[in-house]
């Protein structure tokens, strides 16, 4: 496969050396081993080495029932835990051809969008940290903490919630949920101005990320990259718009597209997505329909024989869940098409030819979660 921008000039081929950006490193967002071939400051080749956190989630799920396998997906992409659980619940409901109550649908969308906002906030803080500005990390976590407290009150847990199950949600909303979320959304709009002053408008940050790590549209289509990375290069791939699920078709929000495809554009696209998520939450928070929050399922769920596929849009791209059932009470084969596995492939065309300082800026805007890559 010919990549569209090889911009290499190797000066002295016998001066190359290999550096391991090892599994333990402060800036690889998890245990990822990269072997980088350098020529002075220029990067010639990048080879990622996966598998340090492979836990066999797909194999374990073959011995769990349909109600039980959702809890493992929270640990795959732990920053979009609700959205992963939502995908699993939707695939089982598709198999059972079950309709869930309206209240459950709206609650699920609210939780998913709040998760998206929290995930992008952590991404913003970690981006500042990787580039050397330590303070934005704490500001990002201060806002994220409030969203996590809302989760703690309603779902019981902050990171691996296991709240969305086939049939609806596990418990009803806490009475304090609606006023707290409204307050958080109002404050968040002000604090996003602070984010702009601290990082977006900063000349050092702009010089560090503009023109760095350009990904062309042809490369990303051939590598199968989705999510904000693809949207920053011009590919329209939001699952919530193209194959909407659970009521997203009734909501009014924009899909953020840009054409430049460098790190700065990816940064701006994610910030805009945060604002769109805030807008979605504001549309729904006052109109949560009354009714039951869960549809009763049988104690032992048995899916009919066949194959079922469901895609959802996590904070990082498109998650696809492929379920093969042989008529029994446990899945025969479960395969997750995770967004980060494909997004990791984007590293090579972006990094080759640039300097090692750019590697960190590029990885920070790629926003990879390593447990999602080797599940």
């Amino acid at each position: 496969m010919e990549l569209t921008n090889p911009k290499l000039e190797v000066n002295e081929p016998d001066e190359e050396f290999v550096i391991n950006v090892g599994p333990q490193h402060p800036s690889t967002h998890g245990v990822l081993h990269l072997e980088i071939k350098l020529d002075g400051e220029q990067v010639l080749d990048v080879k990622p080495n996966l598998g340090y956190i492979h836990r066999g989630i797909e194999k374990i799920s073959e011995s769990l029932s349909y109600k039980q396998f959702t809890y493992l997906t929270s640990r795959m992409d732990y920053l979009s835990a609700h959205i992963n659980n939502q995908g699993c619940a939707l695939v089982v409901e598709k198999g059972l051809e079950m309709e869930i109550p309206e209240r459950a649908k709206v609650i699920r969308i609210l939780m998913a969008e709040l998760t998206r906002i929290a995930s992008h906030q952590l991404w913003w803080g970690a981006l500042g940290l990787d580039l050397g500005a330590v303070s934005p990390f704490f500001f990002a976590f201060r806002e994220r903490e409030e969203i996590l407290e809302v989760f703690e009150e309603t779902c019981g847990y902050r990171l691996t919630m296991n709240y969305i199950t086939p049939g609806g949600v596990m418990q009803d909303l806490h009475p304090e949920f609606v006023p707290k979320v409204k307050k958080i959304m109002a404050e968040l709009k002000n604090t996003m101005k602070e984010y702009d002053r601290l990082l977006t408008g900063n000349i050092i940050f702009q010089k560090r990320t503009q023109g760095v790590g350009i990904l062309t549209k042809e490369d990303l289509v051939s590598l199968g990259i989705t999510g904000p990375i693809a949207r920053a290069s011009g590919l329209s791939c939001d699952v919530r718009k193209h194959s909407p699920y659970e009521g997203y078709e009734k909501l009014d929000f924009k899909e953020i597209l840009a054409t430049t495809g460098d790190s700065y554009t990816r940064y701006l696209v994610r910030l805009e997505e945060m604002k769109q998520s805030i807008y979605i939450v504001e549309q729904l928070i006052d109109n949560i329909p009354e009714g039951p929050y869960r549809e009763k399922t049988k104690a032992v769920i048995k899916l009919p024989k066949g194959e079922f596929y469901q895609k959802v849009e996590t904070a990082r791209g498109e998650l696809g869940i492929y379920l093969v059932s042989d008529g029994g009470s446990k899945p025969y084969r479960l395969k997750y098409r995770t967004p980060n596995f494909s997004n990791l492939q984007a590293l090579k065309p972006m990094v080759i030819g640039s300097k090692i300082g750019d590697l960190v800026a590029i990885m920070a805007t790629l926003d990879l979660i390593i447990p999602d890559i080797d599940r």
Partner: protein
Amino acid sequence: MALLNFKSTMKAIYNYCRNVINAFISLINGMRVTGYYISHPKQILTQQYPNNRATLYIPERFKGRVILPHDENNEHKCTGCSICQMSCPNGSITILTVTEELPDGKKKKRLDRWEYNHGMCTLCNLCIESCPSDAIKMENHFEFAVYDRKNLIYDLNKPGSKLKEKSE
């Protein structure tokens, strides 16, 4: 010709100066944010944890661990049906029952030990959902550090407790 050169160099110098001044303004904007926080120490959010236990707020639904509530007569509601053991995804629950003979000859199964492996439990809530007699619930305590891993495997039912008789 000479005038054109002069104009373009002037424009280049003007752009240069403008870049420098804009850069400074953006840097000072960033410094304003951190300067605001250092001059307003009231905004500090750190909770001084071990000293503030009295005023700590833990939400009710926080999943700390599974407990078997006993009422004042030391009775619980667990019938020993083992449905929770079947719905636990990773085997943190072991229900040990004992069959005893009642005076009128019928054999009845009752709960002997409700063994809970707190270290393995993923707090997924599936056991509580599936319990038909509403016997277990989640407690919201969170301080469970132990020195030996064996201390994390314990029984939930208190010694000498028995099943609460259903009032007809």
